[in-house]
């Protein structure tokens, strides 16, 4: 059979060494009535056959490499340089596990340390952990962390325009605890005045789900004056262009790292990023790598501060997280190193310029109006006809104009969320504008 090297002769020799008459005998502890059930499964395929079958299945999809796509909503089409999958796909990275044995895991450990360093620079914080499952779970765990760090404060202020699926994940994670989720709207600095002595944290999504980039000046001061923490969930490509959340006073920063060198893959695996100020590091969940020396003074890297974690603290751990998104984190590490200082800024700038060109073109169409004051690569357009109708009409010509907000908010029928990245050409943007004009006549 595939992937098992034991021959019949091997098995016979091994059974003799064990002192068992048959392989079946090894399963004597399994209740006999339940042993060896007949499984109703499709017949086994060879490698050739399964790859052929999966190719046929994959082709039933229409991916972003065909047509003009302006769909975002927390997952973005960005360019992934060839070296990212080529290097991360090396078997020595791919088929290792959590670097418990530091001496034979220095490759993974140093890569994590480099990730922590570059992500910390991007976020403007002192420490970043070695990943969560995705942006939504990173955010949910950050809120739990804030609730633990600032004890006896049951109130959490979240933006009304938080990604709706993040909001759902947060609700799942907080369900067992008595936490008041209070939605804020309007300018962030005004809303932050609502932080009181019962509030644990004030959350900003930057930009928010509707694309708005809030001015954060004065926010941290108001939050901190009330003794609460400022949590900023940021787009990591945006962070290459904008002032860092840490420099604006954020105590905890989270992000969805998919945009940093990771393919769309129908929603996963993605990368939950979390960073915090040095003061909060011992409250932070997840793996953390630090420098260490051996007895000869050689520099190496180890998993550290593990007294926070489940394998040491069990029910008293700060989180249950064990396996994370290591390989996705590695891809983002390679991406940040490869693009570097100029490349990252360039990607951010291309997104900014193209999104602003698109918004200007769409804003000229009769009945269309861009709703944002400040935005980055995604913006909200009010449409003269229901946005869902536009999406359906344009789909037929291979143009995917964005997300109808009614998908999450049934009453918001005439709003379309449009995402533009460096992957979109001016031609595609012009086609989008033309197609929307025709479809809304």
């Amino acid at each position: 059979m595939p992937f098992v090297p034991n021959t019949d002769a091997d098995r016979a020799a091994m059974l003799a060494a064990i002192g068992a008459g048959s392989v079946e005998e090894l399963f004597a502890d399994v209740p006999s009535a339940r042993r060896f059930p007949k499984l109703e499964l499709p017949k086994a395929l060879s490698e050739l056959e399964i790859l052929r079958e999966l190719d046929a299945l994959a082709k039933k999809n229409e991916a972003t490499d065909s047509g003009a796509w302006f769909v975002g909503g927390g997952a973005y089409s960005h360019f992934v340089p060839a070296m990212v999958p080529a290097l991360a796909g090396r078997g020595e990275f791919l088929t290792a596990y959590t670097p418990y044995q530091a001496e034979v895991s220095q490759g993974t450990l140093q890569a994590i340390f480099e990730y922590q360093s570059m992500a910390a620079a991007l976020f403007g914080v002192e420490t970043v952990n070695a990943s969560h499952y995705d942006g939504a779970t990173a955010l949910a765990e950050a809120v739990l962390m804030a609730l633990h760090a600032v004890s006896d404060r049951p109130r959490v202020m979240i933006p009304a325009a938080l990604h709706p699926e993040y909001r759902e994940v947060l609700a799942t994670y907080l369900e067992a605890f008595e936490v008041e989720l209070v939605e804020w709207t309007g300018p962030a600095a005004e809303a932050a005045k609502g932080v009181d002595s019962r509030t644990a944290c004030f959350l900003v999504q930057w930009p928010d789900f509707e694309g708005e980039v809030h001015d954060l000046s004065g926010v941290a001061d108001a939050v901190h004056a009330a003794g609460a923490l400022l949590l900023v969930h940021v787009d990591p490509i945006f962070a290459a262009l904008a002032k860092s959340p840490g420099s604006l006073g954020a105590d905890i920063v989270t992000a969805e790292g998919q945009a940093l060198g990771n393919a769309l893959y129908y929603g996963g695996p993605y990368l939950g990023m979390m960073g915090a100020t040095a003061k909060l590091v011992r409250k932070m969940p997840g793996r953390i790598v630090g420098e260490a020396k051996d007895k000869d003074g050689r520099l190496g890297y180890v998993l550290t501060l593990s007294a926070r974690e489940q394998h040491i603290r069990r029910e008293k751990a700060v989180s249950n997280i064990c396996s994370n998104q290591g390989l996705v984190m590695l891809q983002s590490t390679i991406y940040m190193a490869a693009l570097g200082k100029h490349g990252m800024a360039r990607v951010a700038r291309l997104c900014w310029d193209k999104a602003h060109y698109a918004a200007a073109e769409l804003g000229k169409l009769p009945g269309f109006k861009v709703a944002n004051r400040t935005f980055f690569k995604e913006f909200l357009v009010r449409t003269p006809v229901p946005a869902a109708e536009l999406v359906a009409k344009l789909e037929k010509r291979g143009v995917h104009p964005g997300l109808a907000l009614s998908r999450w908010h049934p009453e918001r029928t005439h709003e379309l969320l449009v995402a533009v990245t460096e992957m979109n050409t001016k031609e595609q943007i012009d086609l989008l504008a033309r197609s929307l004009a025709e479809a809304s006549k």
Partner: protein
Amino acid sequence: MNLTPEPLVYGLSSPGRVGVVLPESDVPVAPVPAWLERDTLPLPELDELTTVRHFTRLSQKNFSIDTNFYPLGSCTMKYNPKANEAAAAHPSWRNLHPYAPESLSQGALELVFRLQEILAEIGGFKAVSLQPAAGAHGELAGVFMIRKYHLERGDTRRVKILIPDSAHGTNPASCTMAGLEAVTIPSNAEGGVDLGALKAALGPELAGIMITNPNTLGLFERNIEEICRLVHEAGGLVYGDGANMNAVTGVFRPGDSGIDVMHFNLHKTFSTPHGGGGPGVGMVAANATLAEFLPGPLVVKKGAAFALATPAKSIGRMKAFYGNFAVLVRAYAYVRMLGAEGLRRLAENAVLNANYLKALVEKRWKVKYGRRCMHEFVASGDIAEGVHTLDVAKRLIDYGFHPPTIYFPLIVPEAVMIEPTETESKETLDAFAAVLDKIADEARDNPALLHDAPTTTPVGRLDEVAAARCPVLCYRA
């Protein structure tokens, strides 16, 4: 293994180097407001070849399944077929947006649906959600489901979850995150759940039990059906931790024995790569009692088409979108290459390999619970005066083997948890046992060899205590 120190990316940086050339902009420049724009972006500047060599050299500082025997107990470090990677690399998976209309993502939805059906059949469950991203994430989903089940019935007293003392730390940590109280129950002399202690812990506050079968000692819980019956009679539910499912695919369906909800680790049993820490999938399966509580959305069939749907009493979402999809493609490819017969053979050979290795190892090394094991067994590393498990583990490295899991489970002193998996050959097992034999001699004759190990690696043993006392967690210019 590459022993040459490799500088950090920052040490390789030189102003003006470019690793990736991006297209010229084809649109006008739009001004960025001054209040928003950052002054500097302190990231390195590397050319492409420097980047490639850097990460290639780093990779050469790892042990991995592709390069070394990696018998890390409870982690199922089996071979990850290259066909899985080829299957997942298809551009129509890679570039598929999660919010593509359902009509344009039928291939992905169909794959998820088929995998849900296959995994439900293997486990003996009614329904499956592939959303959880890791084992601990699946556990959390499962205990949320148990909690919600009791609350839906108006039974607000049930807050206690029983957990055997051999369990992974994620079990009690998941309970805490779900607002439930973890209650430890002891193991009996043969390494199973102590039924007397179990009975004593049942009561009106019982929410359920989390049980790993085979357990972390590598032993099958003979009383599994009795345990399920007792817990159910007391009004509780049974959570199955499927970390060790590799021992029993095609041999035993946990759902048949009375388990209500269970996670499988697709990155263990279903051969998807561990990636230096992840990503995994901790899919969660449920019987008729709990199927309606599964996290959503999952995929359903509507006529000829496939669609996303959330079960009626769902605990909600565990993450954004639908799960670690690319991992699902790999697991699907694997399970289709094996079929029913292959699944049984994999478990048989995993158990055969573990028992064979145990027979060789226990000639000299203590194995506290000595009965027939399943896919792994737990020895003790204190083979000689002054020698500890850590020393044995580090000495194994000098012979080219990744150490087993050590100091776990907690109920075995100086634990060495060895899981060879079915993809290793008899020759490899013989070589590993021979080295353990040699290390036992060294421990007696020249223990310094163990205490100083490893000496063949880029760095020796690192001072973890000092590292945690004054943590340096990122590069400082």
